[in-house]
């Protein structure tokens, strides 16, 4: 089984007009989706990244330059990540077809490049 990183990008726009009942429906869809993946042994972990935290580090003229990342004000923020298990890229994509996040934002799917111990 290969491992995949899924980066959900938060949607643009505001949540101000979303009613509590609608919020509940959105969360329920996620819960149903993640629960199914967990039951199938597909979901390794999911984590939320702290908002407005973190830095981008660079070495400039020998000195460390730590800047607040471009992610802070970016239009599409990566709010966190999931790590999924699947047979291949196509299989991993198939797991995301009904991910509720696609109704409000986008997903970036990347395969984790495992070190092959044989070589």
């Amino acid at each position, binding site marked *: 089984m290969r491992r995949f990183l899924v980066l*959900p990008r*938060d949607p643009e726009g505001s*949540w*101000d*007009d*979303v*009613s*509590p*009942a*609608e*919020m*509940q429906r*959105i*969360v*329920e869809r*996620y*819960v*149903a*989706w*993640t*629960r*199914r*993946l*967990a039951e199938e042994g597909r*979901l390794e*972990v*999911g*984590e*939320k990244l702290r*908002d407005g935290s973190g830095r981008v580090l660079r070495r400039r003229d020998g000195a460390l330059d730590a800047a607040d990342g471009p992610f802070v004000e970016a239009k599409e923020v990566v*709010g*966190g*990540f*999931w790590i999924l298990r699947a047979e291949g890229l196509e299989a991993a994509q198939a797991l995301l077809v009904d991910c*509720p*996040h696609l109704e409000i934002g986008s997903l970036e799917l990347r395969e984790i490049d495992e070190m092959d111990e044989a070589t």
Partner: protein
Amino acid sequence: VTEGAPGVGPLVEDLFRRSAREITAVLARRAGGAGVEEAEEAVQEAFIRALRSWPLQGVPRNPRGWLYRVAARRLTDEGEKGRRRRALLARAQPRGGRCDGGGQQSSRGRNGRSGELLWQEGLPDPARIADDELALLLLCCDPALPRVSQVMLTLKVGCGFGVTEIAAAFLQRPTTVAQRLVRAKRLLRRRGARPPEPTPAVLVARAGVVREALYLLFTGGHAAAEGERAVRGELCGEALRLARLLLRHPRGDTPATRALAALFCLHGARLPARLDPEGTPIPLEHQDRGLWDRALLAEGFHHLQRSSEGDALTRYHLEAAIAAVHAAAPSAEETDWEEIVSLYDALLDRCPAPVVGLNRAVAVGRARGPEAGLNAVAAVAEEPSLAGYHLLPATLGTLHAEAGRRGEAVACFQAAVEQAPSEADRRYLRSRLAHVAG
């Protein structure tokens, strides 16, 4: 905070709406001076955080407590930010200079600290939440606000409905509702209104306004002639919940409130039988009475009995009594229609509305035959407020049909179909038309 593996925690039904109204009520009242708007904003922030973290990290074991903690902390942080900003400004000001917007903001700053204590305490017990919810309800029903604003504000902050849902219930555009809410909150803010303590004086002054707002909320849900869904059970449920809230308070527990609660229960009990599977309204006489909610009927009779203690006789008493006669009857035929007519007479004395006269005419037709019914309709038929009201020709149609005048009946039902405000009502009236014509 990882309090559960992804997707592990269950999500209780109605968590967000319930949390919205409860946490707003608690914060608006006890984060002192925070005011409804700040409390609402903090709750909204907490909800958005939940939306962004629960899908990834799972639903926390105690979702309500989580939302409450996050909202309360957010209110504290806002208070802290304001305090620091003011401290900076004060330092920047020349001695004796005045800091912009001092009074109101400094009170908010102080409250940041009480807010901090608040979220460490955890979610208060249900009795205290109920007390906060009552205070918020009293705030929403400020007599200085137009009635419809009171009801909309109650729905928004007191019941946790969204702007689009309120707009749908009132057949208005969401922007119109949003503007009305902004104006209402601005007025409350100008009056320095925080949720008032439910003192005897406040309750005596506002209970009547609250009851009228709840009545409008209930009838808006129950009659809901307009719109796609003919019955908005949710609005009825909220009206009953808030009436019970008022009853729980010693000063709110008056004969008029009991009568109102009885009315909500006795009408609400019929809701399960009021629509067919296609959403077409079913009139009382054709309803399957086995579907009526027995527990709600029992509660309604209990409230009605207690409402007769004392001398008060309000329109709620009379309307509840009419509903009780229906509820006690095993069928439409076995209903005590004469009793209903006399209750309508008393109701007309008290509130001479043409629509009450029309309902009375229906009862007269039942009790004394179609010709007597038609005479009773004639007494109100020319009232301007009934012009274009589909139930006027529908009532005439029923009475003409019973009197054997098919032509008149068909014409009346045709008019009723044209005036019907919703597709569901049109469906029902078309079926009556077909029945009469066939």
